[in-house]
Every structure is written in C-alpha cells, then in structure tokens.
C-alpha cells in the first residue's frame, strides 16, 4: 500500500538521466548555434549600446528638454509635461540620473522590439481568423505559447538565455522583450477582431485589396486597442528590469538587487520609487497619446 501514501515517482536514476539528457541536448544546441544567434543579434546589440550611449553622453538639460518635448507632443497636456519634468528632476537630484537613463534606454529598445515583432504576429492571428471564418489555427497555436510566456516565472527563462548568450545587456534585453511581448500581441489581435463588420464589408464592397483593408480600416480602427497593448508592454518591460539585473543588466535594477542582498532599505526604496516614477511617466504619456488618437469619436452629434 505504499503507492497510496507516497506518490509513485519515476525512479531516481532514470529521472536524473532524463534531466541530464535534456541539459546536454540544450548545451550542444548552445554550442552549435550560440555564435550564429549572437551574430544575428548584432544589430540589436549595436542599437542598444548606442541608444544607451546617446542618452548618457547627452548633457542632462538637453535630455530633460527632449523628454519634456516628447511628453508634450504625445499628450498636449501641460499637467503631464510638468509631471514628467518634476519626476525627472527629483530622480536626478537624488543621484539616480545615470541609472535611470540606462533603464529608460533598455525599456525603449525592448518596447520597440516588442512592437516590431508583436504587431505583425497579432495581425497574423487576427487575419487568419477573419479571412477563413472556420480556421483559427494561428491563434490556436500562438495563444498557448503566450499563456506559458505570461505565467512562467520570469527567473526561469533567464536560464536558457544566459546559457545561449551569456550575461550582459543583450541577453537581458531579450529576456525583457520575451516577458513584455504578450500584451501587444494579444491586444493587436483583439483590436483587429473587434473592428465593425459593417465597415469591413463596405471596404470589401468598394474592392479593397487585403492590404488596403488592413491599412485603411483594420489598423486605424484597432489603433486605440493596440495603444493599450503598447502601454501594457511598457509596464511589463519596466517590471522585468529588476529581474534582468540578475544577469548583468545595469540600471535601476542593480542597486535594488544590492539592497536586497545587503538589506539597504533606503537604497532599495529610492531606486524602487525611481522605477515607479518612470513607469508613471510612460503610462500617462502613452495613454494620453492613445486618447488623442480617438478624438474623432468624442464629438458626438447630439
């Protein structure tokens, strides 16, 4: 009756052998493909490093002005622009300017990558479902992958990334991007699926090609939803920055990690609050921009 008390497991030796075999297989894959993958990621590394260098080498008053300008262009709101300037000044005054620039550079590059890959994947998911009403195969394949990506503890996929690419900025960037990409894929898919069927039919009736339909109808009408996805992606990228510091990503995450290890309460709180500050900046600015895109919906005939 032992099997009732204790769960019958695979015997220890076999389990170890299995784990070893998988590890070995992945290690061989790493050895065979690591350099190739690294070579393919070279443009990303170049972009990342130059972005960081640009933000660090530009004198802080100019950077501050640039941020204020971007916030103004996106939101057209004095309140939001003022908030951005105030937050950044405060961060700088408390001596976290450089780390903040590193974190922002990382977040911006990761978000751009997520948009570049995420939006086309979202479009593919939505369109395979709309074009052939029965077949949702692309969505049926990608959705479970996204589920895994979103629920897998973020530390876990640091492991293969480190095995493949070592430690440093680029593996960190990849980890951040993988963690942050699901919302933009999901919301692009959703936004396109929610486009009014009547308007789509009208576009078809006038002989729109598939590209014209995407460009003129589906993307513009899905844009507010896609912007919500971009906003979510930015937030998740920021959340991942601390975790990524474990594999050598510099920025606000690193002091937080040190604070955890050494119980430096104030260091942790300061850097934590700086992350909160830039999260709020990104969130308010991107949301205000999303809202401005929907201006045509506001003035309703009464």
């Amino acid at each position, binding site marked *: 009756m032992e099997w009732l008390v204790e769960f019958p497991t695979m015997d220890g030796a076999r389990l170890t052998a299995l784990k070893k075999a998988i590890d070995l297989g992945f290690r061989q894959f790493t050895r065979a493909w690591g350099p190739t993958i690294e070579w393919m990621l070279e443009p990303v590394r170049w972009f990342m490093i130059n972005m960081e260098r640009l933000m660090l080498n530009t004198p802080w008053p100019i950077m501050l002005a640039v941020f204020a300008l971007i916030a103004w262009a996106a939101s057209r709101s004095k309140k939001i622009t003022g908030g951005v300037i105030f937050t950044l000044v405060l961060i700088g005054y408390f001596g976290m300017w450089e780390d903040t620039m590193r974190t922002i550079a990382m977040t911006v590059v990761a978000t751009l990558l997520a948009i570049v890959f995420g939006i086309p994947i979202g479009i593919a998911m939505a369109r395979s479902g709309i074009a052939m009403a029965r077949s949702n195969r692309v969505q049926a394949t990608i959705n479970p992958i996204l589920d895994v990506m979103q629920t897998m503890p973020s530390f876990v996929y640091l492991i293969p990334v480190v095995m493949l690419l070592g430690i440093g900025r680029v593996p960190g960037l990849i980890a951040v991007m993988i963690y942050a990409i699901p919302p933009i894929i999901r919301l692009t898919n959703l936004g396109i699926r929610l486009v009014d069927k009547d308007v789509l039919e009208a576009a078809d009736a006038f002989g729109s090609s598939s590209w014209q339909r995407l460009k003129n109808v589906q993307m513009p009408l899905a844009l507010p939803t896609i912007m919500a996805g971009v906003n979510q992606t930015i937030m998740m990228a920021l959340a991942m920055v601390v975790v990524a510091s474990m594999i050598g990503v510099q920025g606000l995450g690193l002091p937080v990690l040190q604070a955890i290890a050494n119980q430096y309460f104030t260091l942790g709180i300061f850097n934590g609050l700086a992350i909160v500050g830039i999260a709020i900046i990104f969130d308010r600015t991107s949301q205000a921009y999303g809202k401005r895109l929907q201006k045509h919906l506001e003035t309703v*005939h009464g």
Partner: protein
Amino acid sequence: MAEGLGIEVRGLYKIFGTNPSAFVDAVKGGMTKKELNERHNHVLGLRDINISMPGGGITVVMGLSGSGKSTLIRHVNRLIDPTVGEMLVGGEDVTKMGPDALREFRRHKTAMVFQKFALLPHRTVLDNTVYGLEVQGLPRDKQEQEARRWIARVGLSGFEQKYPNQLSGGMQQRVGLARALTNDAPILLMDEAFSALDPLIRMDMQSVLLDLQKEIKKTIVFITHDLDEALRLGDKIAILRDGEVVQQGSGQDIVLKPADEYIANFVREVNRGRVIFVETIMAEGAKPDAKAVPIPAGTTLEEAAKRMTEAGTMAAAVTGQNGKVLGALSMQALIGAMVTPVSHDKAA
C-alpha cells in the same frame, strides 16, 4: 459611364450551413425551408431566384426581415457566394470571377450604400467620400475633385472636414450616397439605405435619389421593407418571402393584380392614386366628352384628378406622345380605381 448595365439573376440558390451543396438537390426537389432547418440544421436563404433587372432603371427588392433580400443584394457584388446559380452583370457571370477579376469588378462596376451607413469613423466626410477612388489608385487631386462635386450634389457642402460622428443620421447617409456616387460605377446597390432614417428625412432622401437618377441613369438595386418606398422608387419591383420571389412586375401590376393573399394584404393600405396611371383604367378608343381636359398618358390618377378638378370638368381625354387621343376617362371611373376594391378586403 457604361450606361444601362443590366443584371440577370438565374436559378440562384443560397443555403447556409456547414455543407450546403449536399442539400441543393433536395431543395430543388421541393424540401421546405422548415424541414431543411429542423432535420438538417441548414438555413435556406434563397430559393430559385430569377430576376431580370433592366439597365438604367431602379429595381426594388421588397420583403420583410428574414425574407432574404439583403442576402440577395450581396450576391450582386458577391459579398456572399451563392450555393448554385448565375449572376450575370452585363453578360458576365459574377459567380465565376477569380479574386482579381472580382476586385476589379467591385472597384469599377458597382458601388454600395448600407443600412447602417458603414462610414469610416476616423476619416472626415471628404476622406470617406474619396474611398472608392483611393482604392482604385487615382491621383489625389482627381479624387478630391470628384468627391467635392458629389458632396455638393447631395447637399453637404461645408461639411467636408467633419467626422461622421458629428453628423445626424440623414447627413451620414448622404455621405454614404456621395461615397457610392463618387465611384461612378454603372451599378448602385442600396441595401435598406433609407430604412434607418426618420420618415420625413427618408422622403427627402428618396427625392434626392429620384432627382439624381434622372441625371445619372444608373442601374439601381434598391432593397426595402417598405412598400410605399418600393412603389415610389421602383421601375420594377420584386417581392421576396421566405427566400422566394412571390411576384415581380411594375408597381401598378403589383397593386392591381397581387399574386396572392400575402401581397394583397400588403397593397391594401397603399395610396393607389399615386401608383396607377390614367391609361390603365381609361376606356380605350372611346370618344372623350366635349368638355374633356387632355391628360398625357403616364400621369398618375391623383395628378389627373387634381387637373380635372382645376379645369372644373368631370371628364378627361388621355393623350399619347403626339397629342393623339388614346381614350376617355371619367371622374367616376377614376375615383372608383383609387379606392381599394372590395375583393381585396374579402381576401384579407
């Protein structure tokens, strides 16, 4: 403009479901809509539709909701594929076109106006109106020139830069009409185009359409559930019920000789004076009274009664093209024809 592109619908069937072609023969053999639905879980959309729509005229397809009229109009530009049957437009079978040919056909031969307007909410009136030409790839200044002309023609000058949400329903549908007309296609498909509008605005839009049609002479397919609208607009009317054509003919045919009780019920409430023409009820070849006022053939009874009253006479002479007298008409016969015949009341 290719004037007078006629449309021939031949033996068109549409069955909705997972395996529609399996049931075509059964439906042709007389399986009812109910049996198909209950026993086989397929919906019969259209059964054996044969309609000839003359080029340059307005053909109205009338029916209540669920009769298949919106399904039928979507077969003309193949927004819906038929299960079997032919849709000949100017001699070409739309159902056999490949994707590229179909797209070209939709771009150049048809334009459509929708019940719920279906405008692009993120585009201004002007940018909505140019849509058809933009899709065709015309230069922008040409697009705008055409669009502005039609925006003015439907009475929306000054609203070019407004968004659809800023306009009332009637104005939005004018944009829908301008968008379709800017396309300059010989066929205009109007799917319950005026049904969502208030009665007064609907009348107004009908007048706009009739005025325009005198000038553009397009082949118009107009879908409606409103018999008065059908009679006002239609050169030819086809009445649909449960996916089948119950009767087709001129408005006068339908009012005077309803094919069955269903249609008789419909036409009972119609103002006959506006539908029936004088030559239909005149005493052919009879010599008119000396005091008779001349009235040309093609005048409605209502108009004739008005003219006779104005002239202070009880008799009229119906005249043909060159003023030749075709027959005589008395006020008594005229009023008799304008009131609903008793037989229809009984039939009801």
